[in-house]
């Protein structure tokens, strides 16, 4: 009987040493602090007026003061972005799953997807208002239009990336389409799906804000920015920007975290 290969020892996962975490966290922190200091100094040195570019300290204190409202508005924007992503992403993924075996169909939809990606989505915002009303409906529609092609493309490429030998293996087991799909194509598509999601969550957030900017309630980040920008309340605008960034980045990090957890088995994620 053969014993275990010594080769294996090198492959076993070890916890990351603390210093490697530090190497990831410290440089951005330094850059952040330096940027804030530089920002303050520039305003000081060139006496930049408050309505053009406020000081970070001012933005921070206003952010804390308005936190309750910003969270409420952020939640509304987030809900629009989330529902749009759910709808658009769902359509994109479903189309990819239906067509990935039929080359001409996938290619045809792929051309539409490519066109949609090139279309400046914001130009569609006024039209969705006509069709779906000035409130959430139109904004959800715009977000879906922006996110569907992204998830379609990534899912399609992922589903098609299934290893040729593995497909033959499933065939040799006489496994049906459905089993092959779940056991083989879906796992292969997952890494691509997550890459697409990382892009789509950010895009969904931006598009939601842009379409809110085009009209409707003020009780969301885009509406608030529109209102405050019209009144040249630059500090308030900046607090909304900060809130939007925080929400966007945390969504990105949540997706990245799920990605790391779900794809623990993936060779690219080791060590």
């Amino acid at each position: 009987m053969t014993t275990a290969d010594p080769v294996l020892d090198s492959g076993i996962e070890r916890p990351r040493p603390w210093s490697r975490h530090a190497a990831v966290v410290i440089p951005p922190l330094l850059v952040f602090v330096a940027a804030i200091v530089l920002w303050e100094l520039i305003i000081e040195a060139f006496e930049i007026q408050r309505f053009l570019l406020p000081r970070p300290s001012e933005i921070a204190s206003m952010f804390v003061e308005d936190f309750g409202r910003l969270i409420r508005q952020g939640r509304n924007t987030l809900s629009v972005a989330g529902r749009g992503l759910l709808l658009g992403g769902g359509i994109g993924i479903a189309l990819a799953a239906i067509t990935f075996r039929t080359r001409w169909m996938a290619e045809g939809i792929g051309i539409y997807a490519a066109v949609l990606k090139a279309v400046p989505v914001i130009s569609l915002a006024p039209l969705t208002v006509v069709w779906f009303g000035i409130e959430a409906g139109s904004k959800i529609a715009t977000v879906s239009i922006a996110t569907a092609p992204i998830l379609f493309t990534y899912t399609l490429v992922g589903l098609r990336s299934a290893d040729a030998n593995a497909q033959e293996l499933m065939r040799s087991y006489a496994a049906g389409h459905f089993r092959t799909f779940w056991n083989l194509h879906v796992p292969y598509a997952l890494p691509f799906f997550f890459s697409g999601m990382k892009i789509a969550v950010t895009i969904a957030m931006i598009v939601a804000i842009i379409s809110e900017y085009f009209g409707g309630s003020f009780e969301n980040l885009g509406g608030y920015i529109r209102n405050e920008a019209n009144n040249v309340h630059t500090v308030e605008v900046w607090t909304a920007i900060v809130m939007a960034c925080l929400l966007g980045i945390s969504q990105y990090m949540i997706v990245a975290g799920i990605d790391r957890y779900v794809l623990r088995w993936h060779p690219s994620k080791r060590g």
Partner: protein
Amino acid sequence: MSAGASPEIAVPLAARDRLLTDERADRLRSASARITLVLILIALFLGGWELLKWVTDSPRTTLPHFHEVVNYLFSVNSQGDRVWLDTGRNLRLTFIEALTGLAVAIVAGFAAGTLMALSRWTGRGIMPFVIGAQTVPIVAIAPALVIWLGTGWETKALIAGFLAFFPIAVSTARGIGDVSQDSLDLMASYGASRTEVFFKLRLPSALPYVFTGLEVAAAFSVIGAIVAELPVGSQDGIGVVILTSQQYFSLQPESLFAAIGGACVLGGAMVGMVRIIQIVVLRGHRAQELS
């Protein structure tokens, strides 16, 4: 040359020529198949438009006939201009803004991406912010910049460039950094200098990545230019046309559709341009799957 390699070499010239022509014929066949597919897709789009109008029984104020939009394009507006000429003029301005912005973004994004990839600490320090900055709502920055720098086309080009910068920087950093250790070792075994490693290895292998980012950037530059035209004070550009047609929508719904159509064509043209350059530049590279 070893004898073992001879079968490949010994393919008679005539046969090789035949293979080449076959390949050309194949390419031609696939090209014509693609054109047919695109024509079918356009027909499907127009058919779908009219079908949607018929099924939902939409009035002209929700969804005009396609031919009504085309008719509108050839009509004369209140200033006595042909509408399509006027739209074209505005599109040209937005195109110049987007293109200038894209050019600036290519230079700046490529430089920043290279720097991030080659200097580990700079990369680690800046990369999170480059990714984070993509979540900045451009609509919020644009008004401030317009107040600051004026309503000239240069401001709009700058905003377009701001939006296009990030995808280029990120994809360049990824491409320049993503070189296998084996290739680096090979270059080292030749005694290659840093410059040679960059130009002979990193740059060529980064190109497919860069172009993927460039395509996104091209689409973003158009969005940036349009957003920049939205704040009060702008007179020209397709963004302004969209805003005005939105205001007069109930009187002249066709104008909004025409304006949006124009913006879509502009976006398609920018991305298409990048694609064509990509195909020419990357002829030798393996086809990139994700684009």
